[in-house]
């Protein structure tokens, strides 16, 4: 495929236009025409349109958004809720922040269309507690739409009512997991719940609930305006549309970039990001947020950015939080940081995670700090094994995947820190 042509922009189509973060600015670029169009359709038709577009969840899991909406039971007599997941917390990920700061009304328009499609009467914007400007922008946007009658009773004469509130988190990574988010919304500790039942059947307050990531919903206005087939034409056969990548680490121009699915990782690094800083060599890339397996440079540079290609390369596209690592970095040191993070964020309800992540973190600390014991790498492999698939949510796996992949590709760096026989290097 020839990528020399300008990439079609969906989410950032209007990002650079004047005052597009205001109601008038968003209206001036065709804002709310998608909502008007959607409200003239049946909710089921909106669901079908998003299904046909092939939009997949951008929070990390990549599950088709329209299919998820379709799981809401027909003819339920309970209220239906929409929860917008704006609890962006996966290290490496800062794309939803940009969407909320620069395009709050686009995000909100997408959310209102989603709420209509699933017949929700109430929507919650669950935003992480540390966000300042994003929260102020979203709060102001919701108040403006309330004044304009686009949130409230009988929206645009459709006979449909929707209330919308901001729910501010308070510093807990696990609330980005959809059932953890629901627990937090209900006034509890943000502990995930066993699935099934899935939230679409029994979610917030025991009622059918859809939890969608900000970026997923932000694509909905474009899809409604331009049609499902226009969106489906973008990207690859199975990964439709565009995706935001928030690039961090040792590149010349870190930032948040929108590219079509299937765009070569090498081009993103060289073109958008301006290559490696200070001419250093690329060592590794974590393509989709810190919990995803790391790829060594030679594999990463051959990979295209779509769900299937990244999976074939041995990792996952995840949230699109791309962490670029140069050859000055110590992999044991980076893994130590991840160990500390995931043990800090364990919610504590499942034993393997509550006990295993701090244990793993302690072992990673002593390996990186030059106090390794002879069998520490085997211990870490054992910990990674029992962190996998043994818990309610994926947080435990989120440490297991980095441990395995760091060992797989950079084992020699770890071995260099471990004494071959007991006593030989027992510095601590």
């Amino acid at each position, binding site marked *: 495929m020839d990528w020399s042509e300008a990439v079609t922009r969906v989410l950032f189509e209007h990002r650079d236009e004047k005052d597009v973060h205001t109601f008038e600015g968003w209206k001036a670029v065709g804002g709310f025409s998608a909502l008007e169009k959607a409200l003239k359709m049946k909710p089921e038709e909106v669901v079908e349109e998003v299904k046909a577009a092939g939009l997949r969840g951008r929070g990390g899991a990549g599950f088709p958004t329209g299919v998820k909406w379709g799981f809401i039971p027909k003819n339920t007599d309970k*209220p239906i809720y929409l929860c917008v997941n704006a609890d*962006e*917390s*996966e*290290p*490496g*990920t*800062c794309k*939803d*922040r940009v969407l909320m700061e620069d395009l709050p009304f686009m995000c909100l328009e997408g959310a209102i269309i989603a709420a209509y499609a699933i017949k929700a009467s*109430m929507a919650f914007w669950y935003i*992480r*507690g*540390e*966000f*300042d*400007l994003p929260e102020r922008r979203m709060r102001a946007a919701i108040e403006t739409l309330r004044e304009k009658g686009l949130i409230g009773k009988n929206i645009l004469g459709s006979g449909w009512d929707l*209330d919308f*509130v901001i*729910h*501010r*988190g*308070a*510093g*807990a*990574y696990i609330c980005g997991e959809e059932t953890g988010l629901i627990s*937090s*919304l*209900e*006034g*509890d*500790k*943000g502990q995930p719940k066993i699935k099934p039942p899935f939230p679409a059947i029994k979610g*917030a*307050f025991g*009622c059918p609930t859809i939890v969608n990531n900000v970026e997923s919903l932000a694509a909905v206005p474009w899809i409604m305006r331009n049609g499902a087939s226009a969106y489906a034409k973008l990207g690859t056969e199975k990964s439709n549309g565009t995706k935001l990548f*928030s*690039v*961090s*680490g*040792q590149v010349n121009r*870190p*930032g*948040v970039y929108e590219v079509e699915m299937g765009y070569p990782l090498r081009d993103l690094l060289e073109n958008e990001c301006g290559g490696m800083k200070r001419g250093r060599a690329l060592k590794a890339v974590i393509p989709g947020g*810190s919990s995803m397996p790391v790829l060594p440079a030679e594999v990463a540079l051959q990979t295209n950015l779509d769900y299937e290609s990244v999976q074939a390369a041995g990792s996952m596209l995840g949230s699109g*939080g791309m*962490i670029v*690592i140069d050859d000055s*970095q110590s992999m044991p*040191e*980076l893994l130590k*940081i*991840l160990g500390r*993070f995931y043990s*800090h*964020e364990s*919610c504590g309800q499942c034993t393997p995670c509550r006990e295993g992540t701090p244990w793993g973190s302690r072992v990673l600390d002593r390996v990186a700090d030059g106090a390794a014991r002879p069998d520490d790498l085997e211990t870490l492999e054992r910990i990674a094994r029992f962190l996998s698939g043994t818990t309610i949510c994926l947080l435990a796996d989120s440490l297991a995947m980095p441990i395995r992949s760091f060992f797989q590709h950079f084992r020699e760096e770890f071995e260099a820190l471990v004494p071959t026989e007991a006593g030989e290097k027992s510095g601590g």
Partner: protein
Amino acid sequence: MTSQDGKMSESTKTGVATPALKLSADAEARIDDLQSRYPTKKATLLPVLWEIQNSEGWISTEWMEYAARRCDVTPSHVLSVVTFYTMFHQQPVGKYHVQVCRNICCHMVGAPDLIEAVESRLGLKHGEVSEDGKFSLEHVECLAACSWGPVMQINRTMHENLTPEAAVKVLDGLE
């Protein structure tokens, strides 16, 4: 319920309700409004705790009891929630609460030097408050500003792309 220093609060000791604490009229009205819209009172616990912390700077045992009454939950439930979320403070923090990111992306672009410079300028380590109450310091996990690291957040204001020198300048500029 028991406060952090192990003393029983007045209401627990006597079985009599604490003299009713109240937030400002505006804050009370905001809570009433939310409680008319949320499906349960319990669900407004996080918003109520935010109102308390915004007003008082931290959340004392007495205010946890207020939150329990306001949201129809037990004080022990409130305590479990307050201790679960890292942003709720159970003791006063500084007028300027300085949070430096220590996670992977900021680490790779200079967070260790930044943290060292901030600690040395403030004379504080992680979790400490200065004697005059002006500053408190906390090492925090990812703040979702990874493309603009290393970052430091003071109260709610984010400072990005910091060198150690720039960070010290920011601190020195605070009244």
